[in-house]
């Protein structure tokens, strides 16, 4: 993988995590109603814009790199999302949640390594 491809992968993963956090925040605000709900559409638009950036970058990476080399990298995105959600949304996982995240990530690695 070239340096440019690595850079694209890193930026696209960051965009994915940030975009998902914006989306979750927008939908949570909408659900709360009242004072807190105001402006949820703005947050949703920011989230969708960030996800669009992710999507275009990911298409570009797919164009340059074989899918089989890319998929293991996709396996780490749930981990990044869980960490991002813990920091920015104060989400906590119980041990079953962590076991589930770990098992699925490892499974994705195996699926893509073959």
């Amino acid at each position: 993988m070239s340096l440019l491809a690595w850079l694209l992968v890193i930026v696209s993963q960051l965009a994915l995590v940030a975009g998902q956090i914006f989306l979750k925040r927008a939908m949570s605000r909408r659900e709360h109603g009242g004072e807190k709900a105001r402006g949820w559409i703005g947050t949703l638009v920011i989230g969708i814009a960030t996800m669009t950036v992710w999507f275009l970058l990911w298409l570009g990476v797919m164009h340059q790199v074989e899918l089989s080399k890319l998929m293991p990298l996709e396996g780490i995105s749930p981990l990044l999302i869980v960490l991002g959600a813990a920091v920015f949304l104060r989400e906590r996982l119980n041990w079953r949640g962590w076991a589930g995240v770990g098992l699925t990530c490892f499974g994705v690695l195996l699926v893509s390594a073959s």
Partner: protein
Amino acid sequence: MPKPAPGLFWNPFLQIFLTVLLTAAAQILLKVGADYSAANNSVWSWLGLVELGSGWTWLGILAFLASFGGWLYALRFLPLGLAFALTNGTHIFVPIGSWLFLGEHISLLRASGILLIIAGILFLAQSVAKVEEKT
């Protein structure tokens, strides 16, 4: 956590399942679209804009947009980390779809990976059930 409307269709887990199926379909369509435009190596190829010339890519984008609706709905009710980990189910259906529609082979390693993902998803579902018991 807020409660979803009654009825199977409004179950956030069913919506995640639909999201997963549509995302898997989208991935396969995008792959077909990317293969069509792989010969093109213009300045814009790094941005993924070349792929937009293929109808398959647009079908893939449509499937992605449809999956997005289910995903936003599920986010109203489920924590982001758990919900996103559940979308790893895509990696079960992409190999199966690639086998069915693109004629790709599923190796033993890949099959065991699929089993691990299924096991992981069962843990995640249990984890959510425990959270709901407490609240």
